[in-house]
């Protein structure tokens, strides 16, 4: 589903990704850990198509298509989703309006009919229950004045509304209380199936208690330097990264 080979990327002349290799198959759950500043968010943003990061070398393929020249909106249409480490607040744009525009844009790309207001509202009410946010959140401006945890739940709301094939969750577990952590983990578990893959970027193994990851990768200094089974996360949490 996702194949990354020898990926190099830079921002403002500074090389941040220095040869990343990663391969993700449908249904898999990959976890990326690594110290601050290692390039984890950069990798996530490069995959989603953020143009301030320039790909200087290597290949990225998603469902058989090269990503390098694909617009971010088309990547979303193809089924890529990024839950941001720091979701932006957008004053003046209503959350529901935004969600509806997103859902319909993606449906259109995939050749499905756009949802009318009533169908959409019904659908969104169901999804709100999953992330345990009340109705008022969809009538507020996008992320404006949302607490840290509410922003993350809003990201998950978007994820389950857009039904991606590959979801990249960048520290979606950070800053969450215990209930929110469970909600997010359940969201992921319930949406995990044989066709849908996840990449989880995290510093903690606590959310991993709720789920069954297939691989743990360590990203350091712009490269994946170690990969292993679930137990590697425990080891990293105990010993840190210096022993690698």
């Amino acid at each position, binding site marked *: 589903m996702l194949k990354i080979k020898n990926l190099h990327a830079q921002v403002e002349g500074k090389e941040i990704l220095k040869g990343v290799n990663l391969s993700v198959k449908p249904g898999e759950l990959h976890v990326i850990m690594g110290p601050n500043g290692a390039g984890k968010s950069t990798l996530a943003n490069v995959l989603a198509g953020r143009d301030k990061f320039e790909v200087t070398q290597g290949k990225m393929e998603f469902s058989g298509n090269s990503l390098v020249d694909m*617009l971010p*909106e088309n990547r979303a249409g193809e089924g890529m989703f990024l839950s941001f480490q720091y979701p*932006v607040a957008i004053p003046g744009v209503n959350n529901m*309006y935004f969600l509806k525009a*997103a859902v319909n*844009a*993606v449906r259109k790309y995939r050749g499905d009919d756009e949802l009318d207001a009533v169908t959409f509202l019904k659908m969104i009410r169901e999804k709100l229950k999953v992330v345990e946010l009340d109705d008022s959140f969809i009538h507020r401006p996008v992320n404006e004045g949302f607490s840290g945890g509410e922003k993350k739940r809003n990201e998950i709301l*978007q994820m389950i509304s857009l039904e991606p094939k590959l979801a990249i969750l960048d520290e979606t577990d950070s800053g969450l209380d215990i209930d929110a952590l469970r909600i997010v983990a359940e969201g992921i578990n319930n949406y995990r199936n044989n066709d849908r893959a996840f990449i989880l970027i995290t510093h903690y193994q606590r959310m991993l208690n709720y789920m069954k990851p297939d691989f743990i990768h360590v990203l350091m200094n712009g490269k994946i330097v170690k990969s292993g089974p679930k137990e590697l996360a425990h080891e990293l949490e105990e010993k840190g990264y210096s022993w690698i």
Partner: protein
Amino acid sequence: MSLTNFQNEFQKLLDRKYFSPELHPVRKDAFSKFEAIGFPTQKWENWRFTNLSALKENHYLISEVKDAPQKTPDISNYKIEDLQTIVIYNGHFQQDISSVPEGVQLLTGSEYNELKNNQLNHSEKSPFDLLNTAFMDSGVCLIVGKNTIVGTPVRILFISDGDSSIMVNPRLHIDIESGSLLTFIEEYVGNATSLFQNEAVYITIEKNSEVEHIRIQSSSENTHHMANLHVEQFEDSQYNFYQYEDGGKFSRNNIYVDLNGENSECRINCLSLSRGTQHLDNNIVVNHNCPHTDSSQIVKSVLFDKSTGVFNGRTVVQKDAQKIVAHQSNKNLLLSKSAKMNSNPQLEIYADDVKCSHGSTTGQLDDDALFYFQSRGIPKNEAFVLLVSGFVIEVMEKIKFEPIKNYIDKKMNTWIA
């Protein structure tokens, strides 16, 4: 700089029968003052970023009978539900298609002057006020008597059209007596090939009255538009002003509000949208002359291409005016590297018990926000429209009269897209 063109036109005006002679003394007085002062230069305070050279060089003729419409003007493009409209075409009042709602008394300029025993209120705050008094043509005066809630909004629709180079100097007096309410709309439209529009609007809001004033400036792309708005408020009065502008080659709005009664409150909301080489300029002065008065200014601009904008906002709190609340906010969105905005928010406070704030930001569209939308599948151009709409929406949001709010929303969305 030469004022010859204006001098010639002024002589012409004095000779024309249809300009009532009772007003000649006040016209002459204003014109001689104008001659002495001349046009503002960029050395003047508050005119530093306002270049009037094109206006000064053009030769504008007074609007004559031949500039009146040949047949009744078609106003179907400007249809708004549930309001009454007064139509002024190139400075000529269009009786057949004009009406006012119940509770509003409509007078011409000279009728109003008579009512005021020849003591027509006029300001000399800028040379353009003097020019308006000297050249005032279409006089429209609306009077709302005591304790009158006018249920239907009234609009004055100014249409300027045609190929001759003309100037139009409308003069509006809106007097709201105590305990009353009026929603009033000024709208400027048309395809004039060369126009100098210089209106003066005087609004007096007596005790315990409320005015909701909406101004829409969508003049033709060749218009030099000068607006001179003077508002005087008394005890317990409320003034809500909403200005939407996307028209004109050059536009300057001089807005003066005097809070002259305790518990009076004014809310000024302006939105300017410019592209090409347009210049849209707001100069706002709010005077807190009384204790317990409250004002706010929310002014936003969106600038494309090589367009330019100015915000001069001044809030003055007089010495004995205690317990004042005053806020000023100016936010500007530059959508091109060549667009320019000059923002000067100022507070001038001579009292000590006041709550004042002011702020100004000028920036580009937030890249992170744009990417956020795209990453959710929303195409870039659509994301752009959503974000710009999101930036402007708050300014017009509080308009109470829904049909006009929808009308402006539609204009706004067409402009952005």
